[in-house]
C-alpha cells in the first residue's frame, strides 16, 4: 500500500515538475499568460473591494459578460463528449488516443466556468452557504443549485477519467475497464445535462419572455456541439505542431463532420427562433427586436449579433462544401464558428433577456474595462491550465514520462523535440 502511495506521489511530483520545464517558446507562452492572469487578478481585487459597481452591470441588466462567458464555456466543456461518443460507441480508432485531450479541455473549461460564476457573486466570501450540509442548498427548486451540482460532478468525472488513464499509461498498465468505462458513459449523459441545466437556468424564468422559450435548450446543445469540436480541431493541430504527437488528418475530419451537422442544425434553430419572434408581431418580441434591430434608439447589440450571424453563415457554407476537407479552410470555418457562437450564445442570449426590463425600460449594457480585464484573466487562466495539462499528458502518452524512467535524470528543456528522451541536451 505504501509503495503504491509513494508511486502515486512520485507521479504527481514528476508531473508538476515537468510543468515548469520547457523550451523558450513554452516559457514565453506561459509568461504572457501569467501576466494576463495577474492583470485579471488585479482587476478582480478592485472589484472585490469596491463591489460590482466597477462592472457595466446595473439593476436593469444584472448579468453581463461574466455569465455570458460562463454560458459559452459550459458548452465547450461538453465538447469532450463529442470525441468520446465516436470512440466508445462506434469504436473509432482514429480518435481513441485523442479523447484525453478533449477531456482535459473539458476540465479546463469547467474551471473557467467556476471562476466566472465566482467573480459574478456579490459576496464570494459566503460561497459556503451553497455547500449542502454546511449551508442551505435550495435543491431541487433552484436551477442554480442544480447547476452547481452538475458542474462540479462533471469536473470530478473528467478529472477521474483523465487522471486514471494517464496514471495507467505512466505505469504502463492496461486500464481496468470497470474503473473508467462506467464513468465515461456517465460523463456522456452528464455532458448533456450540464447544457440542459444551464439552459433551464434561463428557460425557467417566466418573467423573461426572451428566455422563456423551449427552443433555448435545443439551441444550447446545437451551438455547443459546434463550438466545442471546433475548438478541439484547432487545439489538436496546435498540439500536433508543437509536440510532434501523432494526430492524423482523418481524426480532424471526423470532428469536421460533427461541426458540420451541428452548425446546420444551429442555423436552422436560429431561423425558427427569428420567425417566431418576428412573424407573429406580439409585444413579447421586444427583446429580439432590441437584439437584431435596436429599440428606442438603443443599438448596443446590433453590430454584434449581425457579425455573429454572418460568421455562422459563412462557416456553415464552408463546412458544407468539400472545400473544408482542406485544413486551411476547415480552420477558417472553425474560427468563424467559435467567434460567432461566442457572441450569439454569450452576449446575444444573456443581455437581451434583460432588455427591455419587465417594466418596459430600455437600458444598454456595455462591459467596463475592469470587467473585460477580469474576463481576459480568466481566459488566460483557462489556457494556462490547459497548457499545463497538455505539458504533463503528452510526454506520458508518448511514453517519455513513465515509471520505467523514474530513476533516469529528468529530461530538461529540450524534451519537446524529436530527440530520444534520454539524449543529453546539447550545451
Amino acid at each position, binding site marked *: 500500500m505504501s509503495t503504491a502511495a509513494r508511486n502515486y506521489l512520485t507521479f504527481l511530483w514528476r508531473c508538476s515538475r515537468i510543468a515548469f520545464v520547457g523550451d523558450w517558446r513554452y516559457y514565453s507562452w506561459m509568461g504572457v499568460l*501569467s*501576466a494576463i492572469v*495577474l*492583470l485579471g*487578478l*488585479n482587476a478582480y*481585487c*478592485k472589484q*472585490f*473591494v*469596491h*463591489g*460590482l*459597481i466597477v462592472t457595466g*452591470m*446595473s*439593476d*436593469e441588466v*444584472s*448579468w453581463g459578460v461574466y455569465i455570458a462567458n460562463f454560458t459559452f464555456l459550459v458548452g465547450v466543456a461538453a465538447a469532450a463528449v463529442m470525441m468520446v461518443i465516436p470512440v466508445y460507441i462506434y469504436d473509432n480508432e482514429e480518435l481513441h488516443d485523442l479523447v484525453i485531450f478533449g477531456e482535459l479541455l473539458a476540465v479546463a473549461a469547467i474551471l473557467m466556468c467556476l471562476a466566472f460564476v465566482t467573480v*459574478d*457573486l*456579490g*459576496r*464570494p*466570501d*459566503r*460561497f459556503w*452557504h*451553497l455547500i449542502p450540509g454546511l*449551508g*442551505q*442548498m*435550495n435543491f431541487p*427548486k*433552484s*436551477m*442554480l*443549485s442544480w447547476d*452547481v451540482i452538475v458542474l462540479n460532478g462533471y469536473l470530478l468525472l473528467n478529472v477521474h477519467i483523465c487522471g486514471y488513464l494517464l496514471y495507467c499509461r505512466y505505469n504502463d498498465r492496461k486500464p481496468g475497464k470497470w474503473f473508467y468505462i462506467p464513468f465515461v458513459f456517465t460523463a456522456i449523459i452528464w455532458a448533456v445535462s450540464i447544457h440542459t441545466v444551464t439552459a433551464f*437556468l434561463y428557460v*425557467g*424564468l*417566466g*418573467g*423573461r419572455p426572451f428566455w422563456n422559450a423551449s427552443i433555448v435548450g435545443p439551441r444550447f446543445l446545437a451551438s455547443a456541439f459546434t463550438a466545442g469540436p471546433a475548438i478541439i480541431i484547432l487545439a489538436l493541430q496546435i498540439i500536433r505542431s508543437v509536440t510532434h504527437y501523432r494526430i492524423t488528418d482523418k481524426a480532424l475530419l471526423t470532428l469536421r463532420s460533427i461541426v458540420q451537422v451541428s452548425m446546420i442544425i444551429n442555423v436552422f434553430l436560429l431561423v425558427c427562433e427569428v420567425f417566431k419572434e418576428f412573424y407573429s408581431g406580439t*409585444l413579447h418580441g*421586444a427583446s429580439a427586436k432590441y437584439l437584431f434591430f435596436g429599440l428606442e434608439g438603443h443599438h448596443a447589440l446590433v453590430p454584434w449579433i449581425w457579425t455573429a450571424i454572418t460568421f455562422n453563415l459563412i462557416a456553415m457554407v464552408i463546412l458544407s462544401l468539400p472545400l473544408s476537407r482542406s485544413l486551411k479552410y476547415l480552420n477558417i470555418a472553425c474560427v468563424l464558428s467559435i467567434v460567432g457562437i461566442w457572441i450569439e450564445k454569450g452576449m446575444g442570449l444573456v443581455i437581451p*433577456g*434583460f432588455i*427591455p*426590463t*419587465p*417594466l*418596459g*425600460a430600455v437600458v444598454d449594457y456595455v462591459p467596463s474595462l475592469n470587467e473585460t480585464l477580469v474576463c481576459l484573466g480568466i481566459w488566460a487562466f483557462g489556457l494556462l491550465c490547459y497548457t499545463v495539462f497538455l505539458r504533463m499528458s503528452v510526454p506520458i502518452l508518448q511514453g517519455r514520462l513513465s515509471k520505467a524512467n523514474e530513476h533516469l535524470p529528468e529530461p530538461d528543456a529540450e524534451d519537446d523535440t524529436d530527440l530520444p528522451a534520454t539524449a543529453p541536451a546539447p*550545451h
Partner: protein
Amino acid sequence: MSLLEPTPQEQAGATDRAMTRRSFLRSTAAFAGLSALAASLSPLRELGEFSSAEEFMQKYYKEMTPDDMAKVLKRIEGQVERQYGIRPHVRDLKPMDGVEFVYCLNLTRCIGCRKCVHACVAENNQSRNPEIQYIRVLKLPHGSMDMEKADHNYAPESVPEKGFFYMPVQCQQCHNPPCVKVCPVNATWQEKDGITVIDYDWCIGCRYCEAACPYFARRFNFTKPEIPAERLNPSMAYLGNRPRKQGVMEKCHFCIQRTRAGKYPACLEVCPVGARKFGNILDPESEVSYILREKRVFIQLKEEMGTNPRFFYYFDK
C-alpha cells in the same frame, strides 16, 4: 596538452557557472513572479472592515435560537453605532397570527408626485449614493397598460400631466414568488403574513432573483451603501431596514419594522391624495377587504404570470 584545451577542472568550473547561472535565473524569475503577484493583489489593502469572523460564521436565520439572534442583534447595533455614531434599536419582529398583508393602490387618485419613493428611501435606510429606490412610478398614456410605453424618468414642472396616468410599482409580495424559487441558498423566503423577506447576511449576491422577478422589484448593492449619519432611521428590523452591506440584494418588505408593530407603511402615510390602502386581508372589516369585495375591477400586474400578487390596483370611476 594544448594550452587552448580547457583542463577538466576548468570544464567542471564552466558547468558550475552554468548551474549557478541557471539557478540565478530561476530565483530571479521566482522573485519577479512573486512581486508581480503582490502588486496585483495590492488593491486589497483598501478593503477595510469587510466581514468579521462572527459575521462570517453566522447561522442561517431559520436555524438561529433566540439566544443566537439576541447576540446577532447586539452585534449589528454595535456595528451601526461604530459606523454612524448612532445607537439604533434593531429588533427581530415576527409575523403576527391571523394577519396577511395586502396593498391596494388607487390609480384614479395617484398623481405621480413620487413622494412615496422618497419616504421609502428615508424610512428604509437605502443607500443615497448610489441611490437605491424600491418604488418605480411609471407614467403611462391614457388607456394603455402596456408597460413598454411607460416613461420611467418623467420630470415635468408639475404633475399630474394631462393625457397620462401614473402607476407606482414595488415588490408585489407574490403568493408564488419566482424570486424565492430560484434563490440557490434560500436567502429569500415568504413569511406567514405574506411578506417576502431577504436575510442580508445570508445572500451570496448571485442576482438570480433579480432576473426572476417579473416586476423589477429587487435592488442590488453594487457597492458599499452610503447613508449620511443624520439621515439614519434608528428604528430597525433584522429582516427590514437595517443597513445593508455591499454585494447583497434588497427590496420592498412592506416596512416590516412598522407594519409588524401595528403601523402603516411609510409610502402610505406620505401619500398626499390617499391613493394607498394597506391592511389585513384576513380581517373582513379591514379597508382592503372592503375594496377587494366592493370594487368591480381591480388588477394584479401580469396576472398571466401566475405569481398572484398581494398588490392590487383599482379605479374609482
